[in-house]
């Protein structure tokens, strides 16, 4: 089926303002959901689920959170990992200390705690912008990790500061296999992504973008600057907090504060830069690029090595192959940023616009 809008007439504002106004997009989204919810569980191996898909979804969620703050509201942040840490440790403590606490509620409350911390560290955004704000959010990064190590209460006085995620039970079902963890993560990520899409096409999303693009005009038009910025910090940190809780409960199982370093914040920032700043889809594409590509490269390099071995009965030493992966990865990042500085999502959008008119150039 061609990607065309021709013949799809909209006769009401309701149909024109649907979440996916073009029929082909709706079909694609439903197909993708069917793939993720039905096909993947049927065919994916445990390794694929627990080592590739679950982290991909969790990073996509964290990237989505950062994208709301940086991409939509224009507030640069380097505290993403810190907000994830708050989410992970808050969820742990809620389940640990509140008897009978349902895990999903703990996740929501963990997101709420992260949102509070986010608002607190978002306060400087009222006075400073851009790179200076990024430096200010570094404070969150270092403070949160320091606090989690310094006060052993957070990790329930475990000697090494490591927390072990409790067993998850939802509606009487133990979430213990990779498949169940994958389904839980996928459901949460899908719902939150839809909510994000709805927010950015509503009044609050326009408020964020207005503040990002021209804050004086936004204020004159009636958007309260302080509330808009702090809401962005709250919503973004909520997403990061839930991602952090999933990181501990659905992916790693045991985490320590040091897992949430500045390194992780940067990784998530790179995801949205490569995927597309100010794009929901871009968060997923960027997470895919950063999480999946190294694995893919690893497979390709191994395969090439195997071919080389059978042909020339010689293979590259392991030190070279592993560095080769990194070199190709770095090269690809630079390549994509040169081809399209606005990220993979923009490439996708340009492709769609071209397809609409194809095969006619105008």
């Amino acid at each position: 089926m061609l990607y065309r809008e021709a013949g799809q007439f909209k006769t009401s504002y309701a149909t024109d303002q649907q979440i996916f106004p073009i029929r082909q997009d709706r079909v694609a989204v439903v197909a993708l959901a069917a793939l993720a919810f039905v096909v993947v569980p049927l065919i994916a191996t445990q390794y694929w689920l627990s080592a590739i898909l679950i982290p991909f979804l969790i990073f996509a969620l964290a990237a989505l959170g950062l994208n709301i703050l940086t991409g939509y509201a224009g507030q640069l942040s380097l505290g993403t990992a810190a907000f994830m840490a708050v989410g992970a440790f808050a969820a742990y403590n809620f389940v640990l200390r509140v008897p009978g606490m349902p895990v999903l509620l703990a996740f929501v409350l963990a997101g709420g705690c992260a949102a509070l911390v986010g608002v607190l560290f978002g306060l400087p955004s009222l006075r400073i912008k851009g790179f200076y704000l990024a430096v200010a959010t570094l404070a969150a990064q270092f403070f949160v990790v320091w606090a989690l190590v310094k006060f052993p209460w957070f990790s329930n006085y475990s000697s090494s500061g490591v927390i072990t995620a409790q067993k998850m039970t939802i509606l009487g079902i133990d979430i213990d296999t990779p498949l169940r963890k994958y389904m839980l993560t996928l459901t949460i990520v899908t719902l939150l992504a839809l909510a994000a899409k709805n927010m950015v096409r509503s009044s609050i999303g326009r408020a964020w973008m207005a503040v990002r693009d021209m804050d004086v005009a936004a204020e004159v038009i009636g958007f309260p600057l302080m509330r808009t910025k702090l809401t962005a910090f709250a919503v973004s940190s909520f997403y990061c907090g839930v991602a952090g809780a999933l990181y501990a409960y659905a992916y790693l199982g045991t985490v320590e504060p040091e897992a949430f370093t500045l390194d992780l914040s940067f990784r998530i920032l790179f995801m949205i830069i490569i995927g597309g700043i100010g794009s929901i889809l871009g968060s997923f594409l960027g997470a895919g690029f950063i999480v999946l590509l190294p694995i893919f490269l690893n497979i390709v390099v191994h395969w090439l090595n195997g071919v080389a071995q059978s042909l020339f009965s010689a293979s590259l030493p392991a030190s070279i192959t592993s560095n080769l992966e990194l070199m190709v990865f770095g090269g690809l990042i630079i390549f994509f940023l040169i081809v399209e500085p606005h990220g993979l999502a923009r490439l996708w959008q340009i492709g769609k616009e071209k397809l609409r008119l194809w095969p006619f150039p105008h």
Partner: protein
Amino acid sequence: MSGGGRRIGEVILRLEGISLSFGGVKALSDISFDVREHEIRAIIGPNGAGKSSMLNVINGVYRPQQGTITFHGETRRDMVPHQAAMQGIARTFQNIALFKGMSVLDNIMTGRNLRMKATILEQAIHFGRARREELANRAKVEEIIDFLEIQHIRRTPVGRLPYGLMKRVELARALAAEPTLLLLDEPMAGMNVEEKQDMCRFVLDVNEQYGTTIVLIEHDMGVVMDISDRVVVLDYGRKIGDGTPDVVRANQAVIDAYLGVAH
């Protein structure tokens, strides 16, 4: 040209003794004037006379050191931008201040933000009140799009538009708020004659159809003299003339300010 069916009413905005300085630089000194309901009030003056500062004082971007602002019977020292917007003051900017990353439609929708009351949670689910508000406000925005004849660029990101259309979109965004007082900062700057004529028509139509009171800064004397009811003339932050276009045109101080004086 002006006049017609509309009736100029009571004074709705009164500025008294407004003085504004930035450090040692006096931008405005002791300026008083008023604006009546439904009228088109022009502010003119040479470059650096303080015209834009005057607008910034009216809608609260700048806070004057002295003087009072009376709007709709409420007297205060200064306005706060958010409060000004709530009270029905909308404006356009001299250097277009559109939201570059958003479509024309979204830009105009931002003008309606004060009428949207749904909470974030409702917006995230996009159900009930949030959805109803989106649709109702979209209908209103479409009215304005029709009024300003910009239907064809509805979905275009504003960053891609030519200058003249950007100015028109900015006017649309201001109108979307259904303001009672509209401040236009050089709406015709940088336009060719045809675009200026279009813009004049829109300004007059807005004034007549919606009864909006308009305060306008403009350099094109032909335009100012044609469409405005009363004119304030500023020079070096002082008021040197005030009255109908004919009175102002005959004012010696104004002529000196524009043509220069022999020393």
